[in-house]
């Protein structure tokens, strides 16, 4: 069984959550004023702040999403690691020091430093809310994903637990406790990921015919000398009738001579030998009566207690190089060499309908060479290996958004206000880059280790890293799952705090003009935290089935389009005006959100409906950054030029 509640994991998990909450209550007394609540009085030591940067940034998307994407797609998932880290270069070299000098509590403070404009406060406050909520979705999805195997609860229960705990953390003590939670979580995540990587090296690779439950997937090579039914009869199988639409996609149903169970196979060409091979598939059927069937067996059995009706865990090396059966311990370089020379099984999904009109998800294996999973374009970004231009543009657009997005994420930007000066902001960013960079190197090993672990859930790539840990030992699984859960807590705390700051400080105090005392401002921020937390819970349940890293990619696009152009132009172009900044933030935010909501990916993965063809003319690819970031720059330039103060025209340019 892939998922089995573990008492050890539950104990470790409850201990972690208890310690986190205890820390929050202990530090609660230090956040009575707004300066304490939003910015920890600027007294966080730079090293702690640097590791907290890592704790804040290395979210569920980094740990669960990237590792899962690498486990199912190979190198394509690692492209996210590269993009996420590259964004820190923009943050350090361009944004860090000026951001610290200009601002006080929030991103809007920095944008508004020279203008004292309600419009800027409102636009930046709303943009902060939009980006934070978008970023919250994958974190909550990740929480639900973790709780399912850990505690045996449904996905929605995990989302509600995280929401409730985080609301408690943020309401209790604000930035001080959030920082220390992020510091601890960042340290533990990197340490245990390094340990996991060492254990992957020690285990090496092993040749197998299936996953860790002992099931060997059927693989029937066809020589092509006789008719297929004759060859199958020789191999001990009888061909069964199958729906026409299934046959068109190369599926066959077989009845083994030794069993009454019907086997679904797919006819594929082996990448290894070029021969025709029939490979066993796995199915999940949602019946018309609302029941779920795994590989033809009713989930839970007729009495509801049968735990054998499960999908088989996947992810194995089919053949090692030089006739080896196992490699023994490997090093960081020999790991790649052995993998590159092996052949392994990746799994892909087809959505079909059976004769009864029921939706059937078919998971079919694909035999690939190891060198294929170490190159870009094998999974998520398969489009870059096609002739068409748009998939390449889509990829380019994502990588631009990742590069520009980090330095515009509100929950990252507010961390510049928790240290005492610009030099401390710079030093903490360097510590952050080093910690995060080290972790992202590990993601490639962890993802590939999961790919060959025989432990993965074919329906859910987000669980690959914890399941990899479980395949090594139960203690590691308990620790990694608890750390991953704390990872979600740390990041969600930061996001909710950024949102609360936007509501209480930017919008209600500075825009609406509510005369709030310092104490009242903190109280309003706490109420806002509860409200945003509830929104996050609802969205986390609604977006259950999406890869968390993919969702974060969208949040980066919105942040990069709405916030970065205004921030960069404010710092480096003296003619930037108040109106230019407002227009740029609004156009960047609205255009990127609209693009995402109208994209083909959203229609297929969120709305689950076909997209009208005419929309393809307006939004031809899914990632908005390559269009909306330049658009936001252009809008700022044009509006600023059109709204120059008169005295600017009268005197020569000071620059």
């Amino acid at each position, binding site marked *: 069984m892939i998922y089995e509640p573990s008492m050890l994991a539950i104990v470790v998990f409850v201990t972690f959550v208890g310690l986190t909450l205890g820390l929050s209550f202990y530090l609660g007394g230090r956040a009575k004023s707004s300066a304490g609540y939003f910015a920890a009085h600027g007294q966080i030591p730079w090293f702690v702040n640097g590791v907290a940067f890592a704790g804040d940034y290395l979210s569920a998307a980094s740990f669960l999403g990237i590792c899962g994407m690498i486990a199912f797609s190979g190198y394509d998932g690692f492209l996210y690691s*590269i993009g996420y880290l590259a964004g820190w270069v923009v943050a350090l070299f361009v944004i860090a020091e000026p951001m610290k000098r200009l601002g006080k509590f929030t991103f809007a403070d920095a944008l508004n430093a020279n203008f004292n404009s309600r419009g800027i406060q409102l636009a930046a406050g709303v943009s902060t809310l939009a980006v934070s909520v978008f970023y919250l979705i994958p974190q909550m999805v990740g929480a639900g994903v973790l709780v399912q195997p850990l505690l045996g609860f449904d996905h929605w229960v995990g989302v509600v637990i995280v929401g409730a705990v985080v609301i408690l953390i943020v309401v209790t003590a604000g930035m001080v406790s959030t920082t220390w939670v992020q510091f601890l979580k960042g340290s533990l995540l990197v340490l245990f990921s390094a340990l996991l990587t060492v254990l992957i090296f020690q285990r090496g690779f092993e040749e197998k015919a299936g996953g860790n439950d002992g099931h060997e997937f059927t693989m029937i090579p066809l020589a092509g000398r006789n008719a297929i039914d004759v060859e199958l009869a020789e191999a001990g199988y009888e061909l069964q009738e199958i729906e026409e639409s299934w046959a068109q996609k190369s599926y066959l149903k077989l009845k083994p001579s030794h069993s009454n169970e019907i086997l679904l196979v797919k006819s594929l060409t082996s990448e290894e030998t070029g021969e025709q091979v029939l490979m066993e598939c796995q199915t999940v059927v949602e019946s018309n009566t609302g029941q779920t069937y795994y590989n033809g067996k009713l989930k839970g059995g007729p009495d509801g207690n049968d735990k054998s009706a499960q999908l088989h865990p996947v992810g194995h090396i089919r053949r090692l190089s030089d006739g080896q059966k196992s490699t023994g311990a490997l090093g960081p370089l020999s790991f790649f060499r052995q993998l590159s020379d092996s052949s392994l099984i990746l799994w892909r999904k087809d959505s079909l309908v059976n004769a009864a009109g029921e939706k059937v998800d078919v998971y079919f294996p694909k035999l690939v060479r190891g060198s294929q999973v170490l190159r870009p374009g094998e999974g998520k970004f398969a489009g870059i290996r096609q002739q068409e231009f748009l998939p390449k543009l889509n990829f380019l657009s994502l990588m631009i958004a990742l590069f520009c997005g980090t330095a515009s994420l509100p929950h990252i930007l507010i961390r510049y206000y928790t240290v005492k000066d610009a030099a401390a902001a710079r030093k903490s960013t360097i510590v952050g880059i080093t910690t995060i960079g080290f972790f992202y190197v590990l993601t490639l090993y962890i993802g590939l280790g999961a790919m060959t672990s025989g432990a993965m859930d074919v329906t859910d790539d987000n669980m690959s890293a914890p399941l990899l840990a479980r395949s090594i030992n139960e203690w590691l699984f308990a620790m990694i799952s608890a750390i991953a859960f704390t990872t979600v807590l740390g990041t969600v705390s930061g996001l909710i705090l950024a949102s609360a700051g936007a509501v209480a400080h930017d919008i209600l105090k500075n825009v609406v003009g509510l005369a709030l005392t310092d104490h009242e401002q903190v109280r309003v921020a706490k109420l806002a935290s509860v409200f945003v937390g509830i929104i996050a819970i609802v969205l986390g349940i609604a977006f259950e089935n999406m890869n968390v890293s993919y969702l974060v990619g969208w949040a980066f696009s919105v942040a990069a389009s709405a916030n970065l152009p205004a921030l960069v132009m404010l710092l480096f172009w003296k003619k930037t005006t108040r109106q230019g900044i407002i227009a740029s933030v609004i156009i960047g935010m609205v255009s990127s959100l609209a693009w995402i909501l109208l994209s083909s990916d959203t229609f297929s993965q969120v709305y689950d409906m076909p997209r009208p063809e005419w929309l393809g003319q307006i939004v031809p690819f899914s990632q908005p950054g390559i269009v909306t970031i330049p658009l936001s720059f252009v809008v700022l330039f044009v509006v600023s030029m059109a709204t120059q103060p008169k005295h600017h025209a009268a005197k020569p340019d000071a620059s």
Partner: protein
Amino acid sequence: MSDSSQVANSRLGIRFFLLYSVFYFGFVFVSAFAAQWSEWMIFPGINLAVAWGFALIGLAVLLSAIYGMSCKSDTSEPPHKGEGQ
């Protein structure tokens, strides 16, 4: 921090940013438009994609360390709001 320190730090930061951008977008363009190049084996088992990806992470860490050591700091002066307009 004095204005001259700020300007010097900012100039250095922009230079490093541009240097890194060349390496990053070089990698992105090769991946997008000449993906077959990334399969070129630099060492046994290490292709260009893996090597370049690790190098980008290493370069970010290296440049940030050099930047940190080279920047001028004077933390005794009060915060300044002189950037931008």
